[in-house]
């Protein structure tokens, strides 16, 4: 029996070691610390947003071992040893990721509260399906809520991002 590299007796603050956006990071977490709060408060990665904390809004979506998951419905200690991708990992320096560019060009955001969750979900979608139909896009994004833009611009952005990535001949991950 174990609690990620720590004994079960030390229940106050556990050391959690993860890889985030390709970098090894470690921080402290109580068992009850949500992964979303760990990313934001302990690792300073505030790009991951927190809206509802019950899985409904999708703002906190990150990729864990390549799959989109709700960071508000996981404890940080459960992420030990996992490969996490957050919105901070998308841009290369000052150069935005093609998905980010497409969101900007297609007015797929206004306040941008929902955007990190959308970007990560779209990145997972385009990794598995480089040329999704509008229905497939809408179904895949059904778990992400945007209160500002409506979804027309977002769907257009995904189509445009898909095309950009296909033209570049890479996946959303390896540009």
């Amino acid at each position, binding site marked *: 029996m174990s609690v990620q590299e720590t004994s079960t007796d030390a229940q106050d603050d556990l050391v959690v070691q993860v890889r985030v956006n390709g970098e090894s990071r470690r921080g402290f977490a109580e*068992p009850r610390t949500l992964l979303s709060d760990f990313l934001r408060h302990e690792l300073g990665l505030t790009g991951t947003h927190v809206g509802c904390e019950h899985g409904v809004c999708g703002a906190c979506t990150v990729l864990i071992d390549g799959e989109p998951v709700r960071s508000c419905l*996981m404890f940080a200690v459960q992420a030990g040893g996992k490969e996490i991708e957050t919105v901070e990992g998308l841009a290369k320096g000052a150069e935005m990721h093609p998905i980010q560019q497409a969101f900007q060009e297609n007015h797929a955001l206004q306040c941008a509260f929902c955007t990190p969750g959308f970007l990560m979900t779209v990145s997972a979608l385009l990794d598995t399906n480089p040329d999704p139909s509008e229905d497939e896009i809408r179904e895949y994004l059904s*778990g992400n809520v945007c209160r500002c833009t409506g979804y027309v611009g977002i769907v257009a952005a995904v189509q445009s991002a898909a095309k950009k990535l296909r033209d570049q001949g890479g996946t959303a991950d390896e540009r």
Partner: protein
Amino acid sequence: MKPAPFKYVVPDTVDEVLALQAEHEDEAKVLAGGQSLVALMNFRMAQPSVLIDLNGLTSLSGIENGGPVIEIKALTRQLEVERSATMTALPIVAEALRHVAHVAIRARGTFGGNIAHADPASELPALMLALEAEMVATGPDGERVIPAADFFKGYFTTSLEPTEILTSVRIPTKQPGAWAFMELARRHGDFALAGVATLLDVEDGRCRSARIALFGVADTPVRATEAEAFLVGKDPVGEVLEEAARITAEALNPSSDIHAPGAYRKKLSSVLVKRAVTAALNRGDMG
């Protein structure tokens, strides 16, 4: 909100889980995908003082094709079941799973966790009834096999003992050939207002057997047994189908909530039965 503090344990074996459950009884909860439990803990509607994380139990994950039955281990993620090549033998399962929440929830949520949670509006419990699956519970005295018909006892209540966990689900591979899965939800991925899983064995235009399971219309998933019996020996179209749909709704007394009044759900159940039986027949025709 944030969860209340708890003691967190990650056992490596089922025996360790069972020992912890026996030791802590009501104080403890097992954590599978967390897609229901963590949300409840965030709102402090659940405050276990000991959280037993099942995610260390690799032996509880995977799908095995054992010929007459496919066994899905409890911790297998919903998305993995949906994508599994083995499950193409039972296409109604992937179809039902696509109605469960969203990709990011299914990536983490487990097949067994959904069934053990026993939300009456959930797709999988009704699907288990329709497929006449068996739930395998493991407790201090070993394994116990529970038919789906005896498993769901009420709102969020199953026949699992507090000392047991659900370890796998066994689904017979021999199923009636015509099937359909349908639901009505306000938005894709939301819990359904009502839904239906149906499997029909039709020969020469006559139903040899019919299975109709509904969810969202009672405190457990239910089989429309009267309507099923009525359809046997008949061609399930036109007035016969109308009558089967009427019989289905008549047997139900759904409660009202903020999403829909009970009378609406009752009406919806008859509409869904008609649509689903028709879709099943059409799919059967296509081979």
